[in-house]
């Protein structure tokens, strides 16, 4: 297939449809409104169903019902809406239901703003809702990668029976880039013989549930889920290392911020400073091993994490490099985007201290 020029949000929606998603439940919020609008138009054309729910709370519970009924289903929202969805997300994780949740992050806290941000990192990767669980969190940095990760996200969700989140930002959602919808080779996925489809007696009775009143049974249930997480860590961790081979300073960034840092590496090179970029593509599972292995190299003197937040992913970077090298942070927040010159200035400052 040839490339088409598409807005990030619309590309997400089209990619979902091409991945076989036929059900979408959502509630309007900027800056992700193009996703539900696209779904409302396209889903009826392909035999699917779009419902504008009365709230994000209802939307995520519709996702719960549809996922429990065996469908490929998604929802999308932006920060305040994702906060409302947290109870439902926890139930979905507890009941081990597959679905895709898109968060086109905007500045916070509270009503915050509508400009791009990365300040929902903690919420996305550390739980967000109550209880012991993780989402698989995918952080694309181009529209092409977004499209590829949407399909992969649905597959990961189905394979492990776990909710998957695409963590984007307003910039990614709103910009236009050429994309190709590739024919992906399908994964071998387990049958959804656990779904509520009407019980004819040819399988155990399906019960979608996250209540286990006996503490030992609940502990066993959570332990089983955490075994699954170990498999996910081993099989699905994705990271891009760029220019790290002889880097003095490694900058970690994801999503939109990683694009900016990539341009900084060239600016730095012109000044004779060797900068590498480590770009986690899965924020959970986090590519801790990769970061640690670079931290062990002698040529790497320091790490800098750049985010559109007050510093959230930096905590995982610091944990990963485990004191082997100094860990610095630079960020803008509230919808402000870090400028390449300011990142470079930060790098020069660190270089003065560490080298």
């Amino acid at each position, binding site marked *: 297939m040839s490339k088409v020029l598409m807005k990030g949000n619309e590309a997400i929606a089209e990619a979902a449809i091409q991945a076989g998603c036929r*059900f979408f*439940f959502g509630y309007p919020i900027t800056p992700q409104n193009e996703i539900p609008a696209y779904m409302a138009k396209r889903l009826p054309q392909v035999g699917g*169903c779009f*419902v504008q*729910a*009365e*709230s994000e*709370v*209802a*939307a995520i*519970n*519709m*996702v*719960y*019902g*549809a*996922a*429990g*009924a*065996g*469908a490929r*289903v998604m929802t999308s929202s932006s920060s305040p809406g994702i906060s409302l969805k947290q*109870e*439902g997300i926890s*139930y979905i994780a507890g*009941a081990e239901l597959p679905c895709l949740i898109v968060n086109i992050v905007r500045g916070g806290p509270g009503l915050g703003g509508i400009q791009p941000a990365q300040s929902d990192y903690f919420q996305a990767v550390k739980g967000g809702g109550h209880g012991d669980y993780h989402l698989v969190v995918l952080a694309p940095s181009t529209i092409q990668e977004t499209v590829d990760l949407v399909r992969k996200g649905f597959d990961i969700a189905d394979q492990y029976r776990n909710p998957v989140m695409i963590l984007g930002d307003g910039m990614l959602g709103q910009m236009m880039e050429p994309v190709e919808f590739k024919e992906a080779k399908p994964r071998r996925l387990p049958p959804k013989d656990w779904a*509520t*489809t*009407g*019980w*004819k*007696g040819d399988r155990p*009775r*399906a*019960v*979608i*549930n*996250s*209540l286990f009143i006996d503490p030992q049974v609940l502990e066993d249930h959570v332990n089983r889920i955490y075994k699954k997480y170990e498999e996910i860590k081993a099989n699905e961790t994705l990271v891009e290392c760029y220019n790290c081979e002889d880097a003095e300073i490694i900058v970690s960034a994801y999503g939109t911020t990683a694009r900016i840092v990539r341009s900084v590496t060239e600016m730095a090179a012109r000044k004779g400073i060797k900068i590498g970029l480590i770009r986690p593509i899965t924020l959970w599972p986090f590519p801790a091993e990769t970061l640690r292995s670079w931290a062990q190299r002698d040529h790497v003197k320091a790490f800098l994490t750049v985010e559109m937040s007050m510093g959230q992913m930096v905590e995982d970077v610091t944990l990963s490099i485990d004191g082997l090298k100094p860990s610095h942070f630079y960020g803008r927040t509230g919808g402000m985007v870090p400028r390449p010159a300011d990142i470079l200035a930060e790098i020069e400052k660190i270089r003065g201290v560490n080298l």
Partner: protein
Amino acid sequence: MAKVFQKPESLTDKPMHYCPGCTHGIVHRLVAETMDELNIRQDTIGIAPVGCAVFAYDYFNCDMQEAAHGRAPAVATGIKRVHPDKVVFTYQGDGDLASIGAAEIVHAANRGEKITTIFINNAIYGMTGGQMAPTTLLDQVTVTSPYGRKAETEGYPIRMSEMLAALEGAAYIERVSVHDIKHIMQAKKAIKRAFEYQIAGKGFTLVEVLSTCPTNWGMTPAESLEWVKNHMIPYYPLGVKKEAK
């Protein structure tokens, strides 16, 4: 010997955990008998609430989903949109449906979701130990209205059936009681009719069942049945509130 009484096939063998004199069990049986009679057990997906009936997924002998507190109508919407040919019902208490889940029930009804809601109005939060519900009667004492519910501060008991009947999407709404045999028979008829309306694709259907909670009302089972008759029915009039053509 001919069998004169047997457990409906639509109930599992699991012993129910309800308190003595609680009418949740009676309503379960009525729903199960309806599923048997309409021969829909294999095509029915039920949704259990958060409340005393949370374990309904262990009692109804069909595919079941357990929903978050109040969200059963949203969960039902998701299921019904995926399987429009299946019968989908929610079973919800008054805290679940009329308080935390008020938005979900109103909008499911307004969209005309082709589901059936069995709404257990026992004028109290049973599961959490007897707190005030939106349906708690004026002057009724609960652990969170220890001086009796007062209209000035707690508002009035909410008549959900009448409220929902005002919505265009609602196809069949009836309030029934299960305090004696005659009323149990009427309740059964209403439940069956609601399921039939759903199967006919007419829209949203709901049966509100006035129910007892002897444990948290601090009454004997017999006193509880009398209280439904003498206090609940006068405020919550029985009958069909909406019947679409």
